[in-house]
């Protein structure tokens, strides 16, 4: 007999039939098995549909029809229910039906309820419903979730999620790997314990703001790593909003330590460079301020046509302010024309404009009345509208120069006075000595025939002395006049000048049978009278100091050379100048070289008047003439072996003559 035996009398009862129909059509699974072999005595339509059988299964053991269920442990389950009387409840329990090729898996929520007959359990009632679709859907979600988490774990960044209140509910593996924290230590607000204390406040503020405003949050913070060092992370959080409801937060944390290192290095570089620049600026500033030279920079002001109309000092060190002597505020704010309305058209202003245009610096000296100082000012161009002014106090130099100039003036004046005196003295002495000669001569003439031999001799000595005095006076006069007319210079052909001298000395030359050889001589710029006198004295000298028993030979030669090649006769600054070296050499008696300088001195003679008549003025005049032509003269000789007089006259002497004339 089965539980729902249709042939039984109970089945015939309309109430029973209704109950049967009710169970059979209920939208839940209802089944009933009884006996040791769990024979199916009832399975409603819902269950048969799943089992894919009809009610012919009634009376058969469930495990005979579905042997696979035994393998899945259902006999034990049923045995257990029957043995203990405890119902068994299952949620989403999978059951696999073997249908040949295909294995169908169904999920069920069900309850195995023991069936009592009397106090004996004789079967098991199964009630439940199939939840396969629900489970499958759930599984799909779970699979997606797992995938998402796997993906999150595999990322080299922190990935996190938070609930709508901001409490962190997920952190990926990367987080735990880097921080060494556990989920318990991290979730919720635990992560904050790993944050650098300096960043935490800022981070929490940002996070609160984002939570309050549901806005995206992005912040650079440091997290402590396992090893205690900190890692720079760019943390981002995005609110997930559905239908205007904040659901959760998703976020990442990207390692930006590389970028941060670069930034730090960059910043260090910038700081270093800034420091360097600052140090340099300080150094420059320090140099500027401590310089005893005045340094200022002026900015030129132009009109529309591009002409300079004014200037303003934009920078000046203390020394410059002091040199200029204006109040610093005025000096640095007011335009130049405020202090001097005519400054632009002044030579100084014009020189400044020229420097601005050409870039050529200029140097100017001026005297500052208020400070009693001489300044040397160098102006150079900084750029197309700025000039640099450099002031140096040259008062000491300038005073020395002025003193030197004054001394030179005094010297010139004194020399001129001396010449004037020599001229006046010799000129005025000439008259009395002439008259003394005149009257002595007249007296002698008047006494002619009345004088004793002794008296006549005395008269001769008187005359001789007077003549000698007259000669000295005349030579002194000549010497004092030798440099006269130096300003009056022309081109002179020295060959012509010398020829003219030889004509004057013709008689003497013939008398002494002298041979005079003259090379080609240059043309120079000079005073004709002086040059004539120069050669006259030199040739005259050579004729005079000759060897009595030897034919006189005089040679005049010329060569052009640089000062440096002429021996040690020139000062340093003339060494590179060009000169004509004119040599007058003779075969006369010469002199000891130690007298070579002495012979050029006034009234210096190496011989007595008896030996060689003369006043000792000739070579002094030669020296004076050479010097008034900016030249040099010296003599070389050896006693008895002739003498060489060397004269250096500047080439292009026209230029230097006009300069020094």
């Amino acid at each position, binding site marked *: 007999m089965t539980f729902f035996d249709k042939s039984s009398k109970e089945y015939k009862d309309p109430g029973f039939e209704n109950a049967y129909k009710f169970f059979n059509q209920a939208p839940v699974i209802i089944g009933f098995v009884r006996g040791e072999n769990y024979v199916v005595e009832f399975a409603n339509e819902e269950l048969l549909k799943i089992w894919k059988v009809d009610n012919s299964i009634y009376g058969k053991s469930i495990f005979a029809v579905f042997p696979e269920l035994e393998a899945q442990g259902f006999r034990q389950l049923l045995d257990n229910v029957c043995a203990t009387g405890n119902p068994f409840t299952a949620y989403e329990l999978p059951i696999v039906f073997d249908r040949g090729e295909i294995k169908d898996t169904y999920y069920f929520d069900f309850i195995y309820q023991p069936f009592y007959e009397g106090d004996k359990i004789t079967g098991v009632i199964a009630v439940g419903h199939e939840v396969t679709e629900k489970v499958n859907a759930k599984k799909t979600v779970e699979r997606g979730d797992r995938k998402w988490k796997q993906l999150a774990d595999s990322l080299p960044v922190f990935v996190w999620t938070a609930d709508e209140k901001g409490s962190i509910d997920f952190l990926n593996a990367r987080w735990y790997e880097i921080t060494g924290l556990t989920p318990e230590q991290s979730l919720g607000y635990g992560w904050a314990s790993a944050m650098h204390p300096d960043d935490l406040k800022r981070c929490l503020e940002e996070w609160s703001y984002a939570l309050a405003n549901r806005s995206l949050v992005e912040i650079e913070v440091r997290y402590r790593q396992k090893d205690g060092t900190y890692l720079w992370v760019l943390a981002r959080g995005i609110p997930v909003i559905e239908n205007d409801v904040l659901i959760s937060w998703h976020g990442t944390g990207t390692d930006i330590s590389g970028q941060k290192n670069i930034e730090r290095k960059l910043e260090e570089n910038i700081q270093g460079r800034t420091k360097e620049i600052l140090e340099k600026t300080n150094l420059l500033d320090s140099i500027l301020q401590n310089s005893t030279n005045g340094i200022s920079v002026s900015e030129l002001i132009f009109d529309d046509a591009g002409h300079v109309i004014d200037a303003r000092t934009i920078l000046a060190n203390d020394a410059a302010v002091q040199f200029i002597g204006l109040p610093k505020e005025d000096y640095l704010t007011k335009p130049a024309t405020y202090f001097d309305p005519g400054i632009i058209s002044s030579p100084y202003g014009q020189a400044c404009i020229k420097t601005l245009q050409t870039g050529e610096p200029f140097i100017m000296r001026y005297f500052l009345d208020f400070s009693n100082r001489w300044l040397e000012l160098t102006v150079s161009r900084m750029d197309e509208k700025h000039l640099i002014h450099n002031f140096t106090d040259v008062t000491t130099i300038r005073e020395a120069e002025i003193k030197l100039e004054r001394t030179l003036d005094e010297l010139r004046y004194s020399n001129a006075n001396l010449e004037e005196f020599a001229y006046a003295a010799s*000129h005025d002495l*000439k*008259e009395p000595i*002439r*008259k003394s*000669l*005149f009257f002595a*001569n*007249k007296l002698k*003439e008047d006494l002619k025939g009345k004088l004793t031999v002794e008296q006549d001799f005395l008269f001769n000595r008187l005359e001789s002395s007077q003549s000698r005095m*007259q000669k000295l006076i*005349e030579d002194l*006069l000549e010497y004092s*006049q030798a440099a*006269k*007319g130096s300003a009056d210079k022309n081109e002179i052909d020295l060959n012509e000048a010398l020829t003219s001298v030889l004509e004057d000395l013709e008689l003497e030359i013939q008398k002494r049978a002298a041979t005079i050889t003259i090379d080609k001589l240059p043309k120079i710029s000079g005073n004709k*009278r002086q040059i004539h006198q120069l050669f006259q004295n030199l040739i005259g000298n050579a004729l005079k100091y000759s060897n009595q028993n030897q034919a006189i030979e005089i040679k005049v030669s010329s060569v052009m050379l640089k000062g440096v090649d002429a021996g040690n006769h020139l000062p340093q600054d003339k060494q590179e100048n060009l000169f004509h070296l004119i040599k007058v050499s003779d075969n006369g008696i010469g002199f000891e070289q130690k007298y070579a300088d002495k012979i050029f001195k006034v009234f210096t003679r190496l011989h007595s008047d008896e030996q060689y008549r003369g006043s000792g003025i000739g070579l002094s005049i030669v020296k004076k003439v050479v010097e008034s032509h900016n030249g040099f003269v010296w003599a070389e000789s050896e006693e008895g072996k002739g003498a060489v007089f060397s004269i250096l006259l500047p080439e292009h002497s026209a230029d230097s003559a006009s300069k020094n004339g």
Partner: protein
Amino acid sequence: MKKLLLIDDDMDEAELFSEALETIGKDYEFTSFNNGQEALQYISRSNTLPDFIFLDLNMPMLSGKEILRRLRDTTSGSGIPVIIYSTSITDIDRKETSEYEVTDYLQKPETFEVLCIKLKNIIK
């Protein structure tokens, strides 16, 4: 009779000049002044102009050159032959006086004999 005029601050010269003129002949009317001012006045007032003027250069007040310049500025004095008579006569002296038509330059001689010869040569 030739008329001679000497302008020289040194009165000895006038004496020697006069003596020399006597030595070489008596046909001369000789006048001397020891300054230019008086000499120029004399010339401007005189009816007969001198045939020769002997002029010293080195004199106080008016120098020989200045006297010469003034003389040449007057109508009466512009044509009178002037002989510069000085102890030393430099190139500069010659140059500075040449523009005023100087007849001759005579350096004061050192003997009486030479003085006589020179004077004779000039005024013959």
